[in-house]
């Protein structure tokens, strides 16, 4: 019997075959894979420059087999601006956490987006500062307990979680802004499509693209991976809705 075998799943070539330092149940690994798959899909590994930020994702260069520049905390969109302006024909992306992008780096992300820099930004929102041990983030949900909001986030004194994908979608310079999650097979498949689309926007020179990815941090949430995954669905998605907020590539 002859059966034509077709390979439908393999390790992305843009991703090194190494163990990661991520905690059990952390979804950075899944998100790394989606980004690598997008690079592979467009065959741009050899002409992509990643910009790593400060936080759990700083070791980007240990996992992606691409050229990487490490940026100071929050400054990745400014560093990526310098990179993209020199290499306007290359693919440039940043990969940033919520403290990095939505607190200390708010100015840099808003202005890089507003200039319409031809870069892709992958924003991982897990409602906490992971690397430093689970402090309150700009995306920490109301009443959520963290090491610096031990009685729960009090919106009257701490303010409200910032919805970055919606906020950026209001800027003229942004071509594409969306939010996805990776807590279920269905959501992962949608996240893969959106991340790929964000890279496509850059490959086609259509402008600034932004993908917010909701992600679990079981270690700092004090949950096992399954409960953390369930929290993404029950608590995060209601506050941070999954949607494509702007796509200026469609008429």
């Amino acid at each position, binding site marked *: 019997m002859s059966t034509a075998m077709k390979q439908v799943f393999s390790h992305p070539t843009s991703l090194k075959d190494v163990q990661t330092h991520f905690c059990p149940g952390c979804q950075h690994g899944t998100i790394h894979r989606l980004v690598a798959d997008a690079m592979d899909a467009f065959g741009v*590994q*050899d*002409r*992509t*420059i990643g*910009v*790593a930020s400060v936080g759990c994702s*700083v070791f980007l*260069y240990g996992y992606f*087999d*691409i*050229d*990487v*520049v*490490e*940026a*100071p905390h929050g*400054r990745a969109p*400014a*560093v*990526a*601006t*310098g*990179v*993209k*302006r*020199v*290499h306007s024909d*290359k*693919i440039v992306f940043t990969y940033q956490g919520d403290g990095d992008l939505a607190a200390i780096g708010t*100015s*840099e992300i*808003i*202005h890089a987006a507003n*200039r319409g820099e031809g870069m892709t930004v992958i924003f991982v929102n897990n409602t906490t500062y992971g690397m430093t041990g689970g402090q309150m983030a700009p995306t920490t949900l109301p009443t959520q307990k963290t090491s610096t909001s031990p009685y729960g986030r009090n919106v009257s004194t701490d303010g409200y979680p910032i919805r970055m994908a919606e906020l950026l979608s209001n800027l003229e310079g942004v071509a594409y802004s969306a939010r996805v999650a990776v807590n279920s097979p269905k959501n992962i498949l949608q996240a893969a499509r959106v991340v790929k689309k964000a890279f496509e926007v850059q490959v086609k020179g259509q402008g600034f693209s932004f993908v917010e990815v909701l992600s679990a941090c079981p270690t700092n949430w004090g949950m096992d991976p399954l409960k953390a995954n369930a929290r993404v669905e029950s608590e995060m998605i209601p506050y941070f809705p999954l949607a494509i907020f702007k796509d200026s590539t469609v008429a």
Partner: protein
Amino acid sequence: MQKRLLVKGNEAVAMGAIEAGCRYYFGYPITPQSDIPEYIAREFPNVGGVFIQAESEIASINMLLGASACGARAMTSSSSPGISLKQEGISYMAGSELPGLIVNISRSGPGLGGIDASQSDYFQAVKGGGHGGYHTIVLAPNSVQEMYDLTMLAFDLSERYRVPAMLLGDSVIGQMKEALVPHPYVAPDDLPAKDWAVSGKDGRPQRVVKSLFLGDGELEAHNWKLHRKYQQLKDKEVRFETNGLDDAKLVVTAFGSTSRIVMTAIRMAREEGLKVGLLRPISLFPFPEKAFAETTSRIKRVLCIELNAGQMVEDVRLSVARDADVFFYGRPPGAGSLPTPEELLAQIHMHYKD
């Protein structure tokens, strides 16, 4: 006859940078340096350069970091409060071994201070400025011509050693106009290939520009590497000017715009028959330590004059022969604190001994 132009010091920086092939500028407006971005914004379209007025000083230094990581010749400029904001990025550039030019047309402080000429950023410039125990190359021009020449030199030194370079001027040197003889930039033939720059790996091994080193012993080794380069700079790249030291009984030292007033005071002293000489550091890092040591092995009296309450004088004291006397005269910067030549001549009289 060579072409002579009457230009501002700040314009000379921009002209020197463009002549030296700098095609990436990132900055933010601040007095008294805004002539630099204004000139570059006007001229870059003619040479295919990229000018970005960034949202902040912090963003502009990080855009410089990114462009430099690609191997591009790139710069930013600012003035004291803005340079404070850039220190984070300068530290990361130093740690990542990235070249790049940072121009500080300094003004008075602390805080918002004022827009008058100041040399109060000496410590910040030569001692690292940001966190982590690094140095930048620091060059201090004292004329419009040197603003042009040293801008070119700063790019070359920065790229040769992969150490960020600072051109340290002030509002006098930036705003005054005098004759400039422009000349073509000639690239040194010993500039190393930028085989570290990111460009997309395209068949070669991955390149990473970073300053994080967590492995056992990695960061110490990295820091020793940086400090070996600082030692090389001290061995090979010291620049200074001397005048009238052969018969001098008193050495006067000053850098930047203050040295121009000092030169007038020395001329007045010479006209009175006083044997006074000048030792002017041009490179503030690397500091001319040996020049001070050798000069003070013969001449035992040094007068250091600064437009601050005493900063470079500390490096002078560390460098002179042990039996030399070092005197200091300075005024903290602010409107009206620029000393007159007569005021400095009085200081020369006070410390001169035949």
